[in-house]
């Protein structure tokens, strides 16, 4: 804790306020001002220039009846579910690494995990875009090579999906029905280095004697996970769960890069953030974009509130 300070001494130390002033100035101008401006402008018909017209709640009532916005919230809910599933491999990976006996091997795997981070995130996205390419793409090649494509075609005929055909390459990013599956598949095997390292740090606090006691009691590997390991990383899991949900709600870079600013064919990859971006910078409807931002903001704020109230993260 910071030392308490008498009023007299604080007066003598007034120069200390200059230490915080720059930071304060920066967040005031570039964080608080835009936030206030967004609230203010969500009540205006505004093209981004000097002309604006107060229209009250019209932007919001328009948003209420905007089918694109509502379907985009549907899409982002699906993506959140996807991302929750994608958390599992990182947890399992961390547990596997932790259970190795040799410390050297553990460190080696940690380093290997970090290696993919040398590729900038955007480049990874573009490499995946290349994987999804229908003709030269790696994914279609792998499916052809392993014969999985025939399986997919048979399944397609059986269920009547109408997306996989024996004589045509699979258009992962060009067929509306395949947009969501592609957004799921992206990043396979879904091991985020940061996540694994965070879980590993949590697992590190398990003493060796706990394992020894468990083994003496004849506890199997699965039970060990359920009763020893999972409870200890639950804090980290919950924390990354919350961050993940909020992150997925507001992120739209992935969709912008893979599918373009209209959310791909049929707008199937449209998410609220991307719709806000689209309205502001493609259609020039800045006022409406601010209103979409506010709606999204309320959603996220609600989640943050629920999180602080019900998901206690013990420090």
């Amino acid at each position, binding site marked *: 804790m*910071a*030392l308490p*300070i008498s009023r007299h001494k604080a007066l003598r130390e007034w*120069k*200390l*306020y200059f230490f*915080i002033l720059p*930071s*304060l100035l920066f*967040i005031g*101008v*570039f*964080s*608080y001002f*835009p*936030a206030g*401006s*967004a609230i203010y*402008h969500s009540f205006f018909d505004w093209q981004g220039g000097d002309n604006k017209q107060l229209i009250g709640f019209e932007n919001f009532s328009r948003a209420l009846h905007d089918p694109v916005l509502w379907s985009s919230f549907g899409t982002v809910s699906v993506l959140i579910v996807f991302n929750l599933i994608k958390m599992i491999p990182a947890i399992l*990976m961390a547990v*596997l*690494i932790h259970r190795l*006996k*040799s410390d050297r*091997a553990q460190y080696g*795997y*940690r380093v290997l*995990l970090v290696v*993919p*981070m040398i*590729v*900038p995130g*955007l*480049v*990874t996205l*573009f490499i995946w875009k290349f994987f999804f390419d229908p003709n*030269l793409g790696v994914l279609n*090649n792998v499916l052809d090579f392993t014969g999985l494509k025939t399986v997919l075609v048979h399944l397609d005929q059986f269920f009547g999906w109408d997306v996989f055909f024996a004589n045509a390459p699979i258009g992962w990013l060009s067929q509306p029905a395949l947009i969501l599956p592609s957004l799921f598949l992206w990043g396979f*095997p879904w*091991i985020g280095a940061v996540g694994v*390292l*965070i879980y590993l*740090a949590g697992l*590190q606090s398990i003493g*060796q004697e706990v*394992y020894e006691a468990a*083994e003496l009691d004849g506890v199997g*590997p699965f039970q060990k996970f359920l009763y020893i390991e999972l409870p200890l990383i639950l804090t*980290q899991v919950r924390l990354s769960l919350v961050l993940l949900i909020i992150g997925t709600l507001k992120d*739209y*870079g992935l969709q912008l*890069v893979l599918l373009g600013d209209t959310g791909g064919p049929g707008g199937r990859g449209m998410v609220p*953030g991307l719709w806000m971006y689209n309205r*502001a910078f493609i259609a020039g409807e*800045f006022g409406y974009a*601010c209103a979409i*931002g*506010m709606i*999204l903001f309320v959603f996220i704020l609600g989640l943050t509130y629920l999180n602080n109230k019900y998901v206690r993260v013990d*420090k």
Partner: protein
Amino acid sequence: MSAALNDSVGSRRHRDWPKHLVLIAILCIELFPLYMMLQVSMKDNASFIQNPWLPQPPYAVTEVRSAPVAGQPDVVHNRTATWTEVLHGITPALVPDPALISAEKHFDLGVYRVGNLVNGVKIVGPYVANTVFVALTGTFLSLSLAIFGAYFFARYRMPFAGVLWGAFMLLMLLPGVANIVPLFTLLKDLGLLNTLSALIIVGIAGGQVFNIFVLRNFIEDLPKDLFEAAEMDGASHLQQIKTVVLPLAAPIIGTLAILAFLGKWNDFLLPLIVLRDKELFTLGVGLIYLDGEYVKQWGQIMSAYFIASIPLIIIFLFCMRLFVRGLSAGAVKG
């Protein structure tokens, strides 16, 4: 030590090799994009289609064909060798080519398209330079300000410090999602559109909250005696930061710096709306531009991606320990 102990207490039944097997398999898939980037970056489209999976063997095949019109000289065609040709020699094709006179395999390092890399440097080099400038300046300024700010909060409980702290922490709860539209018009009004300073300034503002939060906790945990001793010696607050905070907080500052640098390196949403001139493009915008513009010469594109990764590779090589430990330690602290 602990490994030996563990072994003696009945885990002899559990061998490690199945775990290694699973881990290695997963890591192979995880590293696959990296592998593809590296090996495709040395190929041209023809050899990529001929051999998409494996690196190019260092052999070329010279094929001599009789000319389609009699009386003209033979057509000499150079192509890259496939792995089967390298391992088993050139076998006649299933459908023999009647015009083929001879085909000869020879060692040739020229199959590696180093030109791709040169081209990549030409295309991406300026973007990388811009990004390095933005990320380095931004990280440096952002962390300097954050150190001062954290020192303010950590050293004494000054009047109004609670309110100010609240102002920072509120931003941690508020998502910056609605900001980007007004931020754009703000930058326009300040005349900062289409400048690199805009990216640096917004980056500084964005980094304050998290960095001050982490650094405050760290500085508060430092022994108070150190500050008091320095004060006895007549050290001003600036000197205390220099002699006490900086040396002791170096590891955490390093970790924060790497995280900030990575964040700025990967950012493309802000540059995309701020930058217009091609000379000012940072990596993010540049790559999106490249993706839209080029006829897909995968080799050239992949080598451009490779060039884009080099600065991070350098950082990784020098700071790997800091990186791995820092991420783990930072995670424990919260």
